[in-house]
């Protein structure tokens, strides 16, 4: 199925785009990610991302335009239009693209994979997470959350939808796992909006929607400023969601208090609106941090089940946090529980 195996075609597309942009090319290539929801390949300075099958092109185009309008926050895309898998980048302004017809062997018109092109940026070293740029991440989020929502606005950010999808995967793959019960109970404490069953409350700020350390790159590599990547979940919503993964890691006892404090302090110093400027941030963070703890636990159980192994101590710590949650109603800030 071509829609599920875009790698060779995407690699060729990245190669052609890199050659078109650079003229000369050292021709170095790498597969950066090949998952069901995204395939990402790099060729020299160009990174091509094939978005998930079934991605709504109109929604993705709005997300791409939103990111392109925030050059100090998001990595600026190389092109502002979506490309079908296999197409060449558009020519100079006013001239038609030189090859707009996709490869005839890949005329899968049901779900053409959408491709976006990006400059290469240097990611956080996965082998050295202690060097995590917590302050830079916090400042980028504060800037994003304070940016006016453009018109037309992007769709809602997809944080709650991803949490709900994680629960659906848990129910589909490991409903009988002993750890599934505390996770389900914790999920039931959440208000409907956090489960993607109702619109998010409030006016809605621009949110990344899926912040983790893999969503930061330095551009230009290797020592340019840090910028956010990945527009797939970008949209309007509750900005505390973007703080909630580090908050959840801290609450679960995984992220050391000083790293959480560095992140939160930098966010507040940059006038980020997701939490009050001082005092206890947890009334604002509680619901999203619960949701991301549940999401993390659900996906950990799915992975452990798939690999046929028990939960490790880190995964168990996240499940234990779900277990403690189920007896405690969420802090006031996120509307009534469902």
């Amino acid at each position, binding site marked *: 199925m071509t829609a599920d195996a875009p790698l060779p075609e995407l690699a060729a597309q990245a190669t052609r785009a890199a050659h078109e942009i650079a003229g000369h090319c050292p021709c170095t290539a790498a597969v950066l990610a090949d998952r069901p929801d995204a395939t990402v390949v790099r060729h020299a300075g160009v990174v091509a991302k094939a978005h998930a099958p079934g991605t709504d092109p109109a929604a993705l185009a709005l997300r791409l335009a939103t990111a392109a309008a925030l050059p100090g926050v998001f990595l600026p895309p190389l092109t502002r239009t979506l490309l079908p898998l296999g197409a060449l980048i558009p020519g100079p302004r006013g001239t038609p693209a030189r090859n707009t017809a996709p490869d005839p062997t890949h005329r899968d018109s049901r779900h053409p994979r959408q491709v976006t092109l990006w400059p290469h940026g240097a990611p956080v070293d*996965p082998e050295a997470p202690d060097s995590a740029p917590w302050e830079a991440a916090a400042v980028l989020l504060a800037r994003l959350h304070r940016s006016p929502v453009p018109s037309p606005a992007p769709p809602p950010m997809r944080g709650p939808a*991803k949490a709900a999808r994680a629960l659906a995967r848990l129910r589909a793959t490991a409903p009988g796992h002993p750890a599934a019960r505390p996770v389900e109970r914790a999920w039931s404490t959440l208000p409907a909006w956090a489960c993607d069953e109702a619109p998010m409350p409030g006016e809605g700020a621009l949110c990344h929607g*899926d912040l983790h350390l893999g969503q930061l790159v330095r551009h230009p590599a290797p020592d340019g400023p840090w910028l956010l990547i990945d527009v797939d979940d970008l949209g309007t919503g509750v900005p505390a969601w973007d703080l909630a993964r580090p908050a959840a890691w801290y609450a679960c006892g*995984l992220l050391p*208090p000083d790293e959480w404090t560095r992140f939160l302090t930098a966010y507040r110093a940059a006038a980020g609106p997701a939490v009050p400027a001082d005092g206890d941030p947890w009334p604002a963070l509680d619901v999203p941090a619960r949701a991301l703890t549940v999401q993390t636990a659900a996906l950990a159980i799915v992975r452990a089940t798939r690999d046929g192994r028990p939960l490790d101590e880190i995964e168990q710590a996240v499940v234990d946090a779900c277990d403690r949650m189920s007896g405690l109603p969420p802090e006031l800030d996120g509307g009534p529980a469902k």
Partner: protein
Amino acid sequence: MQCPKCHAPMHTYNRNGVQIEQCSGCRGIFLDYGELEALTRLESQWSQPVPPPAPQAYPAPPAPAWGAPHGGHHGGGHGHYGHHRHKSFGHMLFSS
């Protein structure tokens, strides 16, 4: 000097030869450079057989009631895993 947190005046005390400032309002303690190390050293001499707890200059930041028991305010518990960054947590830091 004034307390950086509540702005009440701070008073100087001498503990085992180490000068520390304590706030008369919130009772918070201000340590100069090297003083925490000096206190930790003194403490470890005092209680040789028991390993000293991890030094913590300031209380842990607020956490939700469902949070893991951290050292210090929540008392006891297994502490957190952050000191020896676990491979599994390293993976978690980078995944959706």
